[in-house]
């Protein structure tokens, strides 16, 4: 058991789930604060130094979405949203409103830890302010300076748009990117709703980097939400 400094706030109204999450977090050495309502969550956030928040969207007092908006008005604190399966639209909205990631109930402790690791890594990366020169996931690597992509050590040819897309994912390894966010980053404002173009672009890219596009190793589809570049 390694003791970590990070303090995580768990906002969840169900005691059983809260206990299980807290236990899992403590096992991994995190410090844990809990809140059962949005009000408590907000007051804990202002009084305690919190490094990351796990937020259930269905809270008894008010909507989790409001908590995100409120917190984002003063803090860049990583927020991971927890929601039920049939709330795709809410997930995407939560991400667009500033949440960093989401988990769908039921989730395993392994999944939870993976998401927390990703979120914290991004937090530290954002704090360091040093430009990355290259990055890699598995056998896929990217060279930001030369704008080159390598798979299994050999260079693969990608179009400028595909490169931009891949670079965007490599800067956000493990993090889910919403379709809206990707469109804005790749095509700029104004292409807001042309998701078909993105699907075609993604399909083209997958054919270059994946062995089987339907069983992707690198870029996973989060249906109804967006895409994620795996980090393991």
């Amino acid at each position: 058991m390694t003791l970590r400094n990070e303090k995580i706030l768990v906002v969840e109204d169900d005691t059983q789930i809260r206990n299980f999450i807290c236990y899992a977090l403590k096992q991994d050495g995190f410090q844990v604060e809990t809140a059962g309502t949005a009000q408590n969550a907000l007051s804990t956030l202002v009084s305690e130094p919190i490094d990351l928040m796990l937020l259930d969207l269905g809270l008894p007092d008010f909507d989790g979405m409001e908590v995100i908006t409120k917190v984002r008005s003063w803090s860049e604190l990583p927020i991971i949203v927890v929601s039920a399966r049939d709330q795709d639209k809410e997930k995407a909205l939560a991400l667009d409103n500033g949440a960093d990631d989401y988990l769908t109930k039921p989730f395993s402790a392994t999944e939870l830890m993976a998401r927390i690791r990703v979120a914290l890594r991004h937090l530290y990366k954002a704090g360091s302010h040093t430009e990355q020169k290259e990055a890699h996931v598995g056998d896929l690597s990217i060279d930001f300076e030369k704008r080159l992509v390598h798979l299994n050590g050999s260079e693969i040819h990608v179009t400028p748009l595909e490169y931009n897309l891949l670079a965007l994912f490599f800067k956000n390894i493990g993090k889910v990117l919403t379709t809206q966010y990707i469109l804005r980053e790749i095509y700029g404002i104004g292409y807001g709703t042309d998701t078909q173009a993105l699907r075609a672009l993604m399909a083209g890219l997958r054919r270059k980097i994946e062995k089987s596009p339907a069983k992707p190793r690198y870029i996973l589809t989060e249906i109804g939400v967006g895409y994620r570049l795996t980090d393991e």
Partner: protein
Amino acid sequence: MSEKIESRKAQVLTCTLITCCFILIATVTGWLFRSLRFPETNIVVVYILSVILTARFTKGYVYGIIATIAATAAFNYVFTDPYFTLSVNDPTYFITFAIMTLTSIITSALTSKVKQNALEAKEKEAETTALYQLTNHLAATSDIDEIVNVAVNTISKIFNCHAACLCFDESGIPETGYIQQKNEHELVRRHIKNGSELRHNIDNLRTSYYAGEEFCDWPIHGQDSVLGTVRIPVEINEQLSEEQKLLLHTMIESTAMAMDRFHSVQERLRSLEEATQERYRGNLLRAISHDLRTPLSGIMGTSEMLMGMTEKNDERYSLAEGIFKDADWLHALVENILNLTRLQEGKLILDKQEEAVEEVIGSAIAIMAKRRPDYDISVNIPDDVLLVPMDARLIIQVLVNLLDNAVKHTPVGGDITVSVWVEQGKNMAVFSVADRGCGIAEKDIPRIFQVFYTTHGKDTDTQRGIGLGLAICESVINAHGGTITARNRLDGAGAEFSFSLPMEVKQDDAQK
């Protein structure tokens, strides 16, 4: 019919009698004037007066003209020399006759016209009053029965008959009975025999009414459909003048407006009611899904933690694993029940978007890989990107259900393949999930998509499931406008489930 001729005869007789009387009275008065040595002009004036009076008290121009001729003839016969013959000695009398005739005709015609106008004005007034009464009474009604009562009573009163009204229900089917006026204070409900036939005749109507045996049916046209018919007895209907028909038409239109108003109020109330129920149902479903899923997530998470805390050969590990698996199964069941409830009520609104087939299949396989990592599922899809309009979340559910089924029936290491191809002619994308399991018994194939139907012959404990999975698949595929089929593989053992999805969004789908 004979009554009509009788009354007509009586009328002719009365009018002729009136004409004769006036001419006779004029002649007697003229005789009196003559014996009193009054000038002849007075006699002429008296005759003209008699003609005017005749025109006033008889119907139509005919008697006025007859009276004119009779008056001239009588004057000639009685008062001109030679007396009591129709011949005239003094030719100046011809001028008198001519002027007398002309004056008589003109004045009688004028009188008749004035009378006619007065009559028309009276009728118009009666019509206006009737219409005013009808609309006034209709405005105070609050349901269809009252509207019918008011309409039947008013129409009966105006046209002096026992009118009736037959209502059609919302789907345009005539009701089994219609309301008829029995007397001034009483309405009866009579049974109708050939309602659907009448409906058919009304639908194919080219004239303003349909003439039946007992009644002539005037359709009540609402905004979108025929709301019913006003039934006028055939013999009364035949006597209706054009003006009366117009009046009847106007009255029927007022009734139609009242009925439409009532229907739109009903419609509004109903949609309000539906919205309330919908909200209630939505809340209930949300509550159920939240209240069941949340504790299940807790159970799953906690049991997984317990598994992590024990060694695999520890007995407690398998106990915790049992809890986890049961909770997982319950969770899948909750998802399926929620989906099925939405689908079967027909309330599910498909969120159709063009989705890349590989992404959808990839998501389904990712879910399966998490559930059963011991199985490797092969994929066989076209090289080019294939975009198919669908509700991705539901299609993933279908694929997961089919894959779950395949995994259940295939031993570990067995071959499970998901394939997709395009049927060019039909413009359909076909998805297929094939396994190498025991296949499907022939007798199960026709009923395999039924709710709560599970295959027989296996140990029920290992084949847990309440037969919802495939029923959901069928509902989802049908909602997409595709078909789903199950069959045994021809190239060896195993079953194959395949479903098709239309490649293009149909026009009517797009409008929804």
